[in-house]
């Protein structure tokens, strides 16, 4: 079902604003996204990581709620997950697979991402997992799909391509 949506037509302009599925967006490149991540991590440590996670979680939570309201026929778990994956890809954020998804836990794999590509290009290999944006994005997505409040899921990253693992692997569970 989600594949039948015309994603190309979702990206449009309203005057000087860029609109994606009715919401104002900005196009930013890996230089800015990674600079922001590094700035927050360096200045605030773990608190900065929480900020990156939380901002992505909150933003996708509201964006997906709006999208699901626009497309009420996308109602099954499978079609909602498919829509979320396509959204991730269409925003240039990478490829994400929801492998096992249950109301209390989930396993998600990303084979490539904007943040991984950007981090490796600018800073090379990391020693710790670094896909905080994607973790938050997954948490917000699952919370929207299961109609749970923000913060309901905790998403951790056990393998990360920023550390030169083969894929990024995420585990979601109820807090």
């Amino acid at each position, binding site marked *: 079902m989600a594949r039948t949506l015309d994603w190309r037509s979702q990206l449009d302009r309203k005057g*000087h604003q860029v609109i*994606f599925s009715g919401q*104002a967006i900005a*196009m*930013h490149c890996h230089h*800015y996204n990674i600079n922001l991540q590094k700035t927050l991590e360096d200045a605030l440590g773990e608190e900065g990581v929480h900020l990156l996670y939380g901002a992505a979680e909150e933003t996708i939570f509201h964006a997906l709620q709006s999208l699901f309201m626009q497309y009420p026929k996308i109602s099954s778990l499978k079609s909602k997950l498919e829509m979320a994956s396509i959204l991730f890809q269409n925003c240039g954020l990478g490829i994400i697979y929801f492998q096992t998804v249950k109301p209390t836990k989930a396993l998600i794999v990303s084979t490539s991402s904007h943040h991984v590509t950007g981090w490796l290009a600018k800073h090379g290999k990391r020693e710790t997992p670094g896909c905080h944006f994607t973790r938050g994005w997954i948490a917000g997505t699952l919370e929207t799909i299961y109609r749970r409040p923000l913060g309901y899921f905790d998403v951790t990253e056990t393998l990360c391509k920023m550390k030169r693992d083969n894929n990024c692997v995420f585990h979601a569970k109820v807090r």
Partner: protein
Amino acid sequence: MAIDGTKIIHAVMEGSRIRESKGIIPLFGVYLSLFSTQYYNLLNFDFEKRMGPARREESKRLLIEAAHECGYATFEGIRNSSEWEQIVAPMIESPEDEIKGFNAVAVAFGWGDLEVTEIIPDKKLCIRVTDSYEASGYLEKYGQARSEKCYMLRGVAAAFMDLVYGGNYPEGYATFFAEEPLCRAKGDPYCEFTAEKSPSPRTIAG
């Protein structure tokens, strides 16, 4: 020939619809992402808040530097891209046209209705914006600010001047610095950015 912003917007909109197999958008020599302006505003303003009053100036400086360095690297990539060569380069007759070309790309990226109001070659750049997403986002969430809030555009304005008048890349980084004397977030009718020679040029970080 004047810089045709509409043509640049069209090229960006068409290019940003192209995904390679890894879900990445390679356009104008950089990897682009499309994400809500709400995300960037949450990051910037929550960061500033968490840093607290004692580190307010530091948080502002870090956010401006993040954008300044980004703008410098991003627009260096952009002006060396095949898309720039094909679409923008034919319109450029002077260094000042190059700045107007950068400005048109920034508008195409959805950063606001940036308008170059003054360029004094090698000395000063003035950009006016009536709808910066940073100012709009701040006003919407927190109400009127006590100080200027458009850190991203402020860094980018300095980067434009660095690239055109700062000498060879990457040595020209931070040859210029920018200020935002007027900001809609603090009640001014529009945001204004002025970039001038920096008293202390620095090198680009990692």
